[in-house]
């Protein structure tokens, strides 16, 4: 019989609340909840302006769009939660859990007395039904399905004990459970059409329930009566404070800014850099959070001409003037300090010594490899121009990047692709570098991107060839021992960055603006909004 390692995380969670409270009091935690002033008051209708419609779908299982999760997170709960300050996994609907040493069996003890908003009971059978639904949906469960890689079965041990069994090690499962893509819907909803569930026709166990959702207009949530099973990362117990929670979809940044300055919205997402000073002047506060995961990174296409050339990769890594790129952005953006980040991210590795700006060195490297400067400043070798093809998710960087690379003799042609053409180029691997970031508070986020043998499938933007990174990327996914996993992650990210197969660029930030009447504005461990602790002062 295998020895099971037990994590008495309930205790840990309680300790964390105490620690969190202390952090909040002196305001030293930049990503933590805003410092509450006075006694929380129950009641009020709250308006938050999101930057877009949730793409017509409020089913977490069928979603991968961050805007949608900001709404869904209020309606459904998860088995475990990720504490935004400590980066630790804490109890939620599961009071405690055990992971087998081979990271293939996960056993959860569930909270008693949890119900869905339609009155149905949350128990082991409900957990099994929800996980089985993800497998039935298959790849259409675009967020949740990859978390259940190697899923074999879920066993109902007793009504409050459930065991999830995988056919291969899957340590990232625990962290994957924290996100709203594996939030639970009631057993009677499971048989409904995917389109109906997308439209919001389901019941969750969350602190709010959906009143109505009108595409392109609003989603209106109301407080769930009798709610008393918050995650250990939250600040209070019992019901949420707000009576009513309204999400509006305002795509114009100027309109969002005006809305929060005039009280038409209590808070807004995605504050534009140019609006920050006016918002602060109006008395509203900025709330800045850096989403954990893979930083904004230049991913080399290892099967392309220049992405596969170590000299060109090194030259680009040295030529990027990250400080200059920062001038494009507002609060919270920083020069990346590694492939994973920010520093609060679980299994973070500080690689700042590997990230340098040295254009002279870049020129030397290219010169030594025989790339001679042509008449127009662009280098050539054997009649071949050094022109790289890059897909950049953040198009505002185009002009600066073009100028920075030209300084060392590398040509970067700006191709403004529409979404469909960009998807086609991505699928075909028709690029040398792909500049991308990915939010997920688990180092497993880089595995699918950088492991070899996938040849561009899924998130494999690197079209990776076999390398020493493979064994570490695979090993960290099966390492149940945190120290071993940390060592594997460090070996993988160090190899990728030293070889410039991944060139970290910037840390991204989400900037929210919050009106002065709002207390307890907060995000979860993956920077999604959580309104459970939020209240209004008048």
């Amino acid at each position, binding site marked *: 019989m295998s020895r099971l390692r037990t994590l008495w995380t309930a205790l840990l969670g309680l300790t964390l609340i105490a620690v969190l409270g202390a952090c909040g009091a002196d305001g030293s935690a930049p990503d933590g909840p805003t410092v509450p002033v006075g006694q929380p008051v129950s009641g009020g209708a709250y308006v938050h*302006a999101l930057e877009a*419609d949730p*793409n*017509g*779908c409020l089913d977490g299982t069928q979603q*991968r769009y961050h805007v949608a999760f900001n709404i869904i997170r209020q309606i459904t709960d998860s088995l475990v939660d990720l504490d935004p300050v400590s980066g630790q996994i804490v109890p939620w609907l599961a009071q405690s859990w055990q992971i087998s040493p081979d990271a293939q069996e996960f056993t959860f003890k569930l909270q008693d007395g949890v119900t869905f908003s339609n009155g149905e009971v949350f128990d082991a059978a409900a957990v099994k039904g929800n996980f089985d639904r993800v497998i039935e949906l*298959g*790849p*259409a469960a*675009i967020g949740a399905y990859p978390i259940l890689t190697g899923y074999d079965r879920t066993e109902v041990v007793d009504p409050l004990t459930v065991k999830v069994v995988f056919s291969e090690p899957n340590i990232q499962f625990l962290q994957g459970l924290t996100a709203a893509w594996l939030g639970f819907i009631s057993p009677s909803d499971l048989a409904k*059409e*995917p*389109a109906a569930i*997308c*439209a919001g026709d389901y019941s969750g166990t969350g602190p709010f329930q959906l009143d109505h959702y*009108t*595409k*392109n*207009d*609003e989603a209106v949530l109301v407080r769930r009566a009798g709610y008393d099973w918050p995650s250990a990362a939250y600040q209070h117990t019992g019901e949420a404070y707000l009576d009513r929670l309204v999400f*509006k*979809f*305002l*795509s*114009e940044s*100027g*309109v969002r800014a*005006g*809305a929060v*300055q*005039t009280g*038409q919205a209590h808070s807004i997402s995605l504050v534009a850099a140019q609006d920050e000073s006016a918002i602060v002047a109006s008395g509203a506060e900025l709330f800045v959070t850096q989403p954990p995961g893979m930083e904004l990174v230049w991913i080399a296409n290892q099967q392309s001409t220049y992405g596969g050339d170590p000299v060109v990769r090194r030259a680009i890594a040295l030529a990027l003037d990250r400080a200059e790129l920062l001038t494009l952005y507002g609060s919270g953006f920083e020069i990346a300090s590694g492939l994973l980040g920010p520093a609060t991210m679980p299994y973070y590795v500080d690689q700042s010594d590997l990230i340098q700006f040295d254009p002279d060195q870049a020129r030397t490297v290219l010169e030594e490899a025989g790339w001679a400067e042509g008449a127009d400043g662009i280098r050539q070798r054997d009649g071949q121009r050094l022109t790289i093809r890059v897909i950049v998710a953040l198009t505002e960087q185009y002009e600066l990047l073009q100028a920075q690379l030209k300084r060392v003799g590398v040509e970067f042609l700006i191709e403004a692709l529409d*979404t*469909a053409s*960009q*998807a*086609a180029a*991505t*699928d075909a691997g028709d690029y040398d570098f792909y500049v991308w970031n990915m939010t997920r508070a688990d180092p497993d986020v880089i595995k699918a991107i950088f492991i070899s043998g996938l040849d*561009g*499938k*899924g*998130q494999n933007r690197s079209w990776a060839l076999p390398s020493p990174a493979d064994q570490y990327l695979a090993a960290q996914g099966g390492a149940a021992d945190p120290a071993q996993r940390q060592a594997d992650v460090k070996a993988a990210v160090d190899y990728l960055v030293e070889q410039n197969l991944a060139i970290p660029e910037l840390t991204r930030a989400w900037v929210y603006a919050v009106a002065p009447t709002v207390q307890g504005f907060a995000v979860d461990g993956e920077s999604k909004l959580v309104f459970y602790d939020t209240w209004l002062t008048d």
Partner: protein
Amino acid sequence: MIRYLGARLAQAVGVLWATFTVTFVLLYVLPQDPIVTMLGARGDSSSLDPAQMAELRQVFGFDQPVPLQYLTRLAAALRGDFGLSVQTRQPVLHEIAQALPHTLALAGLALALALTAGVVIATAASYATRPWLRQVLFALPPLGVALPTFWVGLTLSQWFSFRWRLLPAFGTDGFRSLILPALTLAVPVSASLAQVLSQSLIATWRAPHIGLARSKGARRWHVLTHHVFRNSLGPALAVLGLTVGNVLAGSVVTETIFARPGLGRLVQLAVTEQDIPVVQGVAVFAAAVFVVVNLVVDLVQFVVTPQLARPGAARPVRP
């Protein structure tokens, strides 16, 4: 009368058929694989396995030969069935029906404002006798046409909503939330109406029978209301038909700025998300509205001036 009506109706049906066919060719036939295009826009085509792609292809009918697809879709469209939205998997007609009331309210108020403002400005400009006043009034319509809708919308919300806090800048809560978007949409529409009407009014003022009326001692106001205005309405009426097209086009920008869930926002998002059935559905629907309105305008003109329908007569004026 019957023959005229029949010819106009046949023309209307022809326009609708052409719209359907052109959008079909542009949206379904020209790009490589519509399923890849549609899912590619969501960035997840590569995560789908081939079996699932085949299944989706079947759901949307892309496994059929193109001519058969065309006929099937045309037959379905005649029954009002434009297929399912890729994004929400809801029938396209349901999506349109949900968005339509919001656009109707907006367009209705915008048209009413535009008509009032257009007629008042054009009439005042042609009636005014002080040169500086005339010049100012005549300069207004070209200015209104030249202002970009998004600028007007953002400026109006900046002043009326954010600075003076008189009206909401977004939402669909009651009449107050309708005012700023309707004003935004009314500016270009009233301007083009005023431009045409004022030109027509000037031409009529110079006509010989007006001179005759004036020489008989009729007052200017009497001449305006009894002779000039009626005779100048033709071109403005014809422009009104085209205006409906402007309103639909303007709703894309207006509804986006003011976050209203109408047809314009629906089509704008459908285009960025490559939701092909929705784009086609809205395009054909917009064409239908346009065609019907112009048919009605033609009939009204026919009632006003029956000689238009006589063989060899001039066609209605189309500026």
